[in-house]
């Protein structure tokens, strides 16, 4: 097993947002997380990558216990988290952002070929390589965000809400790119509100509700659209 979360609890201050949550990802798997806003998906990811302290439970990656480890060490191990809301270094160029994605020494040797890979996947970034990140469009910023993640040569790539706030056409383009990354053999966790996007990429889905896993399904065809609507909005009486 590549990645395992066991009974994890964490949050802000004394309040647990993630409550005794367990999930796992195998090598080569693509796993989707979905569920209503404010139910702890992002908190889970921030805990896993070391930005928020763990209150209880355990996180393991590549056979190592990474609970409470410094984010830098977690990145060094190959767990790359692309955060929500196209987080970037806004006043730096596309090129500089990507260079920083390859900050850890593990990636030094293949930096040039990684640049090539990212530019093949997102040709638009190549065109705009000397442009500041803050001048890019929303879609381009998201591409750059993912590109920065790829520069870190992920063993496990975690994408938090890649499609949020994007126009349908750009969303499709992005979904294609993510599928391409997935089929190139990168193990992934994708969090998104758009279940259809997840269905196109992932083999297995977790529904996160109230800080814990409330449904796990391996057969994605089982997930019924009406059922999801009910989860999000409650029963229509």
């Amino acid at each position, binding site marked *: 097993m590549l990645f395992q979360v066991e009974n994890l609890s964490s949050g802000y201050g004394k309040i647990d947002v993630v409550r005794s949550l367990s999930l796992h990802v195998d090598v080569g798997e693509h796993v989707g997380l979905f569920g209503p806003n404010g139910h702890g998906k992002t908190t889970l990811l921030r805990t896993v990558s070391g*930005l928020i302290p763990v209150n209880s439970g355990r996180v393991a990656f590549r056979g190592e216990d990474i609970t409470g480890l410094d984010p*830098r060490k977690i990145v*060094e191990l190959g767990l790359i988290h692309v955060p929500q809301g196209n987080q*970037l*270094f806004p*006043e*730096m160029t596309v090129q500089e952002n990507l260079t*920083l994605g390859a900050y850890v020494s593990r990636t030094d040797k293949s930096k040039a070929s990684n640049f090539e890979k990212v530019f093949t996947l997102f040709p638009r970034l190549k065109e705009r390589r000397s442009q500041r990140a803050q001048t890019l469009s929303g879609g381009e910023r998201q591409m750059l965000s993912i590109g920065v993640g790829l520069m870190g040569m992920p063993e496990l790539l975690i994408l938090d809400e890649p499609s949020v706030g994007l126009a349908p056409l750009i969303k499709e383009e992005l979904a294609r790119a993510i599928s391409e990354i997935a089929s190139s053999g990168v193990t992934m966790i994708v969090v998104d509100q758009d279940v259809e996007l997840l269905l196109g990429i992932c083999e297995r889905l977790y529904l996160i509700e109230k800080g814990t896993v409330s449904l796990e399904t391996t057969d994605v065809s089982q997930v019924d659209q009406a059922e999801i609507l009910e989860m999000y909005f409650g029963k229509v009486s």
Partner: protein
Amino acid sequence: MTPEAIVAIIASGLVSGSLYALMASGLSLVWGTVRMFNFAHGALVMIGAYSGWYISNRGGLAKVLQPIGRNIANNSEDWGLIGDILHPLGEWILSIKAGFGLLLGVPLAIIFCGIAGYVIYIFLVKPFVGKPGADLVVIITTIAGASFMQNGVQVIFGPRYKQLDRILKGPPVEILDTAIGLQEVLIIVLTPVTLLLLNLFLKRSKLGLAIRAVAQNDDFARLVGINVNQIYPLTFVVSSMLAGLAGLMLGGLFFILPTMGSEPLLRAFVVVVFGGLGSLPGTIIGAYVIGLIEQSSAYVFSLYWAPVVLFATLILVLIFRPRGLMGGENS
């Protein structure tokens, strides 16, 4: 206004602007990355001047070493083999009676300031990083540190004013019948070179990129694997070295005394606010603008009115551009 006066005003404005630029860019760098103000920055300017003086001047380290050198040189014959080895050392110490000179004094003083900046970070800043209200606490701790350094220097070096030797000796340069001292010319030329090197460091080196990354988005910086806990002290070291260089320049123009950094620090704060918090280009432009305003108003009105004009300009700029000349969204 005569052309001579204009040249003189521009020259002295550029000199003060240079000193402010060196100081304020350090302050701005620390603010941008660590989000804290280092009130010991002025004391670091003073430390730079004193350590430069101590190493270079005949009254400093060289004077302390003389008795030791004399002892070695005179008695080494009785010490056998060790004496033979030590004898040249004693002779050498005796030969540097005039001090180690600025060639050694300037770089060593800058390195010493870097170390001092690291110590300040470890003892006065690091314990509070990430705690609520840290920015206010650090203002107090660094003021305390500055006061400690000023009084410490007073105890060690005594109340007598020191002065650094002029780096370049020779007749002043004449531009349009106005004489400008070589030290001033050196400051005017050297500062842009230093700032250019700083810019190259921030744009081209891995560590420089990391400093900018932490300044722009520290969460994302952590997620690409940057050791933020290492970048904070590094920023303090770089900023302190810039302060040290400013002190060395100031020490060649005016007397060196324990409080010499306080007045320029106040100006540097004005510059940082004027130029836009955290914006390095804004800070540098702001420094030269402030320097020129200050010197021209000192000439046109009087020395006592210069601060009034300066702060009036600051207030005006902040009314129309509340974030300063080039302050961005996130400053």
